[in-house]
């Protein structure tokens, strides 16, 4: 019954993500919900003058996959440029999780990614 998707590293991201929390004055935010399971994600970001992501924080409720994947993404994207972040696709998220997802689980795994994309979109609008 063991599943490498639920390995210690992922559970750590789920239970005690350093990216869970709020930012005093975020530059962009986004709220998303997966209505099929009620998973909710709220993300906030600050972006520097160099167009690099300074800080990402998230909050939300939901399954391990939706919450942990958001945290994994936050870890990956802090310090990245907005352009890089917007280029990131679903396949990259799967790679970061280190495990293939079935179509249904994909919806969980991409919730945080979608939220970050939507939060950043207005800024990167010219490039997307």
């Amino acid at each position: 019954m063991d599943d490498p998707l639920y390995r210690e590293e992922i559970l750590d991201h789920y239970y005690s993500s350093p990216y869970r929390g709020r930012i005093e004055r975020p530059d962009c935010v986004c709220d998303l919900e997966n209505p099929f399971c009620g998973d909710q994600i709220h993300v906030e970001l600050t972006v520097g003058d160099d167009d690099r992501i300074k800080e990402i924080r998230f909050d939300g409720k939901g399954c391990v996959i939706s919450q942990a994947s958001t945290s994994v993404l936050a870890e990956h994207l802090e310090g990245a440029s907005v352009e890089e972040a917007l280029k990131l696709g679903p396949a990259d998220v799967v790679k970061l999780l280190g495990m293939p997802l079935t179509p249904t689980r994909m919806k969980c795994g991409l919730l945080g990614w979608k939220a970050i994309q939507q939060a950043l979109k207005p800024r990167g609008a010219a490039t997307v």
Partner: protein
Amino acid sequence: MADAVVSGVGAGLDVERVRADFPPLGEEVRPGVSLRYFDSAATALKPRSVIEAVRECMAEYPANVHRGLHVLSERATEAFEGARMKVAAYLGVDDPAQLIFTRGTTEAINLVARSWGKLSLRPGDAIVVSELEHHANLVPWQMIARETGAELRYVELTEELEYDLDAFDRLFDDGRVRMVATTGMSNVTGIRPPIEEIVRRSRERGARVLIDAAQSLAHERLDVAGLGVDFAAFSAHKVFGPTGVGVLYGRREHLEAMEPVLGGGNMVLRVERHRAVWNELPDKFEAGTPPIAEAIGLGAAVDYLEGLDHQAVARHERALIEHAHQVLGAVEGFRILGPRSTAGKGPIVGFTLDGTHPHDLSHLLDRSGVAIRAGHHCAMPLHARLGIPASARASFALYNTTEEIDHLAGALGSIKGLLRRR
């Protein structure tokens, strides 16, 4: 095949023989892991006789029905109309023309909401549903309510999440209720509303009654004529039949007054350039080529049901649900949705496991071959009432065993360990 499981009134169900009828049971879903199927409320497994009936139609007489004069078409027509007669006999309906083949419960309820609703609902009229309903028995009524100016009223459940007949009665105070649409069994909690009372009180007060039998029919017969319901709907795929077909029962008087919803071949007696004359029942509501092999497969499913000793099945399913409440209820953090008592409920356990999201639960159970459902089960208003966005559900059928339920309990226990904060 069905014969094999009739073991005389009073005898138990020979579950091993039943299991042998359902091909994927006993199979491995991945190497070394065999299937434990607890998702019959989503769709039931199909016995070999149903699979064979569909294959036979597709391979031996794959003809269109109605008005074909060659032998394949005559054979298809006889098998197709024969299936309608089997369903009629099973539901205690003496006029098979009152049974309309649809794609499933959803289309059947939409047909009533749209056609009967358009004919009968005036602004201010009320339609009564309950907090237990599946979206299939909510959204069509919302749509027609909006269109006609009627109002949708909800029977609130009791604190224990039981159907509340007093709350039901109060909805009739202003005499505006025209339709009562109720599930025969909640697909989330397994609760069975008191159908006899609901039908009696509704009809006494001049309201029509529709029974959504999608969940209940796999577990208990519906005596359509005896109950005196106006409409009833079910899906073949939940009663061990194929996907793609379901049934609407309607009283002849209603069906005759109602306008067809779909236009096309077969539902017309005559088509002129600018008008058409509708056909008789049931054809008036069956436009186009029907789900032929599927209806024939449903006929085989009804044969299978008829071959069962219903008392033995009922006792077996009762044993399953009692066992489930007992051993699952003993798992730390396990919460049953709805009453803890198994009285008056079907073999469905909706639940949550503290600290565990239903999706993770279902995902991890699957690793040990256990198939359950996680989500809102198309019952969002019920989940809103429960104050949770999603739940897990284990649903049983005649082919499940108490040993399988023990396996589920064990698996739930180890998931808690697996997901423990380290």
